[in-house]
């Protein structure tokens, strides 16, 4: 279980996150939406401890990510806007390096299966600096297939994906949900989030609100 407790973050004295509090149970999927500049990416980056916070805590299975050792982040995987991979390395090299960072030695078969699944098997020897935006997004999904994780943070995962890529993403999300893995997905499209999220959170003006699914009284899709 991931619990976010009274998270606060400011940029140049401008508060972006104000006492943000929510939990994601094992097997749960939290969909977060909000307008541009609401702080959705900041929220995910703070949870992944890639950005500092001014206060509050994030706990994974009761272990503090903000104040504890690096090992507390072991079950957490972040897929952001940027690929978070090395451009001079190939897809294979990046995935091997990434899995080793997480203390896992991926087998050749597992690696190839993952690349096959995301449709990058024929480009696996190219340095990823030559990949398109959509290919990089697919490589991010391959990263989630080779690294063992308990909770996956995804920031706008459909960006750059073609129709088949979006279908692949949705198939993988459902597969992970069946395996009782937890997800936090950020998107501008509330209707898309409602198709698979167990609960929807709306981030606005630094505050987070739980929105009943398919409610007509709630804020609609952000443009």
């Amino acid at each position, binding site marked *: 279980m991931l619990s976010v407790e009274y998270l606060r973050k400011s940029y140049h004295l401008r508060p972006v996150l104000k006492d943000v509090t929510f939990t994601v149970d094992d097997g749960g999927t939290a969909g977060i939406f909000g307008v541009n500049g609401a702080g959705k990416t900041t929220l995910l980056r703070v949870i992944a401890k890639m*950005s*500092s916070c001014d206060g509050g805590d994030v706990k994974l299975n009761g272990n503090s990510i903000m104040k504890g050792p*690096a090992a507390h*982040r072991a079950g957490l995987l*972040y897929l952001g806007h940027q*690929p*978070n991979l090395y*451009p001079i390395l190939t897809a294979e090299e990046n995935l091997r390096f990434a899995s080793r*960072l997480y203390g896992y030695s991926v087998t050749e078969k597992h690696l190839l299966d993952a690349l096959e699944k995301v449709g990058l098997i024929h480009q696996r020897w190219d340095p990823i*600096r030559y990949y398109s935006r959509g290919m990089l997004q697919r490589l991010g999904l391959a990263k989630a297939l080779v690294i063992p994780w308990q909770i996956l943070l995804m920031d706008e995962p459909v960006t750059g994906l073609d129709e088949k890529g979006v279908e692949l993403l949705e198939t993988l999300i459902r597969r992970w949900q069946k395996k009782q893995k937890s997800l936090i997905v950020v998107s501008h499209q509330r209707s898309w989030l409602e198709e698979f999220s167990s609960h929807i959170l709306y981030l606005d003006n630094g505050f987070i609100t739980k929105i009943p699914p398919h409610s007509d009284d709630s804020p609609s899709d952000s443009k």
Partner: protein
Amino acid sequence: MIAFGVSVILLYSFSFNQSPDTFSIFSSGLLWMVFLFISVLGLHRAFALEREFDAIGLVLSAPVDRSYIFLSKWLSGTIFLLVSQLVIVPLFWLFLHLSIPENLGGWIFLFLITDLGILAIGSLVSGITMRARMGEILLPILLFPLVSPLLIAAVKSTDALMNNLEFNEWKIWMQLIVTFVVVFAVTGYVIFDYVSEQ
């Protein structure tokens, strides 16, 4: 880095028309100036790969102690600088008609310990300026004042080695270098977790 260092040595050989005895008076300072510039070149590249595609995000979000990032940049940078020096220094002696010193072990040790100091400071400053908007300009601005005492000590120590002075006469400079290495290595190791976060 090596190409830049060799180019500077060549310029020196054409610019200075002094006898070796006269030139040896200020050769230490010139030598360490070359090393400072090539270390800045190296430090500019230290986090260049991590800046592209936000690759540093992969390492930061992984369950890895971030102090290891500092350690890896520190030690790999030291190795690169040391290898460059092993190529540049013989050419320095050759082109400027200086005699090869007898105490080569002392020279290598001095280079190693000073490089550790320069790269400890440099790796920490590189980490701080990695995400700054004008990081490439900020790096030398922050680096030069911090390494100046270290370089002064290195120049004095090099002078002493060239003149075959007793160690007791110049051990204070070596103590200063070692202090810098220890202080900045420990500081970098301890605070890198904080400086690497956005």
